[in-house]
């Protein structure tokens, strides 16, 4: 079978690359587009070494060409299937969209676990006597006040990330937060020349939001999350991203 690393330009230089199991990476062209592939007796197992090699090959190609990375685990049976893949309409336009761009990953993480805005059923149960009832109501009021304040702070942090970081991007894809403390998790498509300025903006925003929030940024990556316009969700309107 043929393992696919990425779809890319037919033109352009790239170094000789060794792929999974040290198989040579071939760039098979059809017209203006090409696929970076390697040949195997069977579908490669998703070992740590294979996953890393796949990522390294995509990264090396990305240094020299526009790439649409393929998800690991995707392969085709023969060269004819590669050619069919390259014949799909709109491939050149998709490559043009990510050309000279990189992807960065941005997480806005709250230092605190969010407090539920609505008291739980346990919290509003009937007090047993007057004294404990007053204390209970005071505690509820304090908790509500703290929750409202935290919510405002979280929303302000989300808005800062959107206005000052995401506004620099050519594309925004929301990613699963993976935790209640992650207020916003996005993949951003950045024009390469903007990467340094983006890094400075991240440092500034992170310094302003600390210590209540942390801005985690990784990359630059090949544009894994920008391979298909049709599946790209639009960025949410301002003010709706906080949890």
């Amino acid at each position, binding site marked *: *079978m043929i393992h*696919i690393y*990425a*779809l890319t330009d037919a033109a352009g230089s790239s170094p000789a690359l060794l792929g999974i199991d040290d198989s040579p990476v071939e760039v098979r062209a059809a017209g203006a587009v090409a696929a970076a592939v390697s040949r195997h007796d069977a*579908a490669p197992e*998703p070992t740590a070494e294979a*996953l890393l090699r*796949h*990522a390294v090959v995509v990264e090396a190609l990305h240094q020299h060409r526009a790439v*649409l*990375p*393929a*998800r*690991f*685990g*995707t*392969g*085709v*049976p023969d060269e004819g*299937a590669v050619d*069919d*893949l390259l014949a799909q309409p709109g491939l050149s336009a998709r490559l043009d969209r990510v050309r000279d761009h990189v*992807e960065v*990953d941005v*997480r806005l*993480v709250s*230092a*605190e*676990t969010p407090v539920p805005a609505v008291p739980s059923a346990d919290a509003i149960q009937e007090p047993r006597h007057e004294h404990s009832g007053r204390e209970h109501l005071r505690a509820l009021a304090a908790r509500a006040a703290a929750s409202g304040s935290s919510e405002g702070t979280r929303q302000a942090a989300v808005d800062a990330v959107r206005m000052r970081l995401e506004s620099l991007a050519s594309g925004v894809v929301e*990613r699963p937060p*993976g*935790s209640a*403390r*992650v207020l916003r998790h996005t*993949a951003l498509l950045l024009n390469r020349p903007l990467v340094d300025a983006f*890094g400075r903006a*991240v*440092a500034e925003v*992170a310094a302003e939001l600390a*210590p209540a929030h*942390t801005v*985690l*940024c*990784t*990359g630059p*990556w*090949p544009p*894994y*999350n920008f*391979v*298909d316009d049709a599946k790209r969700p639009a960025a949410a309107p301002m003010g709706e991203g906080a949890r």
Partner: protein
Amino acid sequence: MSESPSRLETQQLGDIGLVDLLDRVLDAGVVISGDIILSLADVDLVYLNLRLLLGSVDTLFPPADSS
């Protein structure tokens, strides 16, 4: 991208970077359909196991009120 991360922070960011790499290699990118071999079911299981092994933001950055 902090300017002077501590050793611990660097380690944590390294772990986050590995999670993000796996997120991309296994959970993003071009997915091809049609008369084409897909082995994604097995990969998804491996991906889940790797995510559990690597942990999440909560384990890499414990909440302030739990430390």
